[in-house]
């Protein structure tokens, strides 16, 4: 039996090797380089937590806090917009549904940077929105939409919305519509039905969507950098700044490691929280 699976193993292994080599090992290297201590010439001196300690500093704490708020508010806004949208999508007629899905996915499949550019175009000092407002006489001076938290949020929601809509949509597709009818039949108001029936049963979709938005948003650096200018510093921008700098690579690694930890813990917390709030509960009978 042993020789039977050796050749297939050889064939099947590349995927595993690739994953290990180019995913896990780099991550491990980052992790360890944040702990290692090198001299100027590159001699290995031992393990240290010094570099990590560097970041226990109000400046960086502010950065993490900003990232946290950004990610959380983005996820919440997306959730509030996405759930009704997904609901509508799941329960409309077939033809309309396909068109709407198509329209939802096209931006999703278009180049990320083009999205940024599109909003750039609209929000810029001499961009579309300003020209439009000026032409209808609403304003005299162009508003600086860009370089603000507003433009960052707009862009974040714009980009991440499909990530939230699709998992919820798939969960709702599998949802038995008759349950809603049964619930109304038994006398529940729409909000109660939503809270007690729909949310618990689509919980996995909601959780998936939430994490798919929260996690990347936390580490996002392109959007804040391009849309927010230099006003705010987020985790992603700090990382890219250090990593691409000459001698600060290992500092960058340390910062990355701590950031990842914060991200992981907060993500797990929200995952648990969503479950706690909305999981189907055993009744106190």
């Amino acid at each position, binding site marked *: 039996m042993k020789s*039977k699976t050796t050749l297939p193993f050889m064939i099947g*292994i590349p995927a595993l090797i690739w994953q290990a080599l180019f995913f896990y090992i*780099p991550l491990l290297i980052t992790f360890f380089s944040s702990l290692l201590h090198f001299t100027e010439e590159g001699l290995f001196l031992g393990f240290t937590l010094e570099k990590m300690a560097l970041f226990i500093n109000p400046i960086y704490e502010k950065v993490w806090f900003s990232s946290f708020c950004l990610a959380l508010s983005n996820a919440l806004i997306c959730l509030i917009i996405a759930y009704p949208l997904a609901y509508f999508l799941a329960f409309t007629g077939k033809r309309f549904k396909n068109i709407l899905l198509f*329209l939802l996915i096209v931006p999703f499949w278009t180049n*990320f940077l083009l*999205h940024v550019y599109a909003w750039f175009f609209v929000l810029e000092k001499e*961009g579309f929105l300003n020209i439009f407002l000026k032409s209808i006489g609403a304003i005299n001076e162009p508003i600086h939409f860009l370089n603000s938290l507003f433009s960052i949020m707009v862009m974040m929601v714009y980009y991440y919305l499909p990530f939230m809509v699709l998992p919820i949509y798939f969960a709702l597709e599998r949802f038995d519509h008759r349950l809603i009818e049964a619930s109304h039949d038994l006398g529940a108001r729409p909000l109660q039905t939503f809270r007690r029936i729909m949310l618990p049963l689509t919980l996995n979709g909601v959780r998936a969507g939430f994490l*798919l938005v929260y996690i990347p948003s936390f580490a996002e650096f392109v959007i804040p950098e391009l849309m927010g200018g230099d006003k705010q510093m987020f985790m992603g921008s700090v990382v890219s700044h250090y990593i*691409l700098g000459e001698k600060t690579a290992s500092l960058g690694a340390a910062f*990355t490691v701590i950031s990842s930890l914060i991200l992981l813990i907060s993500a797990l917390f929200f995952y648990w929280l969503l479950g706690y709030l909305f999981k189907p509960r055993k009744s106190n009978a």
Partner: protein
Amino acid sequence: MLKISGLLMVASTYLFLYVPIVVLLVFSFNLEAFPSPWKGFTLKWYYELMHAPYLWKAFGNSLIVASFSTAISLTSGISLIFYATQGGRVGKFLALFYANLVIPETILAVSLLGFFSLFSIPLGLTTLVLAHTVLGLGFVVPILYARFVELDPKLTEASLVLGATSIQTFFKIILPMLLPTIVTTGLLVFIISFDDFVLSYFTAGSSTQTLSLYILSMIRSGVSPMVNALSAVLLFLSSLLVLIYFSLKTRTRIV
């Protein structure tokens, strides 16, 4: 009442999604460059686009990287399934691939950069392909494997009983049945790679540009109708691909 407010909400959301795009498209035909309002219809920005110096190189690079990384990730994914059909225990390894979705791209990109510099691998097309394949594997493996386990095991048994070996069963039964999923996943991964920015930003190096990086450089130099024109072209291509994806998904749901 609920219906109307629902429709209103959906309409406004889609409006939000499409206003920038539509505006972008419209102004790609504007006679004069921004910030002037609509002056007239022209295709000159499209002509300029055709002759933009580094655009086509970047486009070509993106194409190469996307093609190779898709091909490699698909092949590895299929090989893994092959191993599973010959009795390999793949299930427990599967969890390893879920991490790709959970780790933010920035962190992966940064780690890969460190990895490449540690082993003195020069940044360029090669590192791009290596990185994008990892990205692709995170989709290919879970999706293909999920579809694979959905297949009726009795089909494999029927094939064996009728006289086929495990290998013949893989090529005659399993692979053909997985083909629709392979194609749609391949399309998905291709697009993800083509549109990718963060990973490319860190692993491309200074001498190689992908389309995303090219657009970045154009954005940095300010608003220009050429970018509008480029957006229009890429949007058109994306729509085409989404159409293909949709028609494949709905048409070939055999089992």
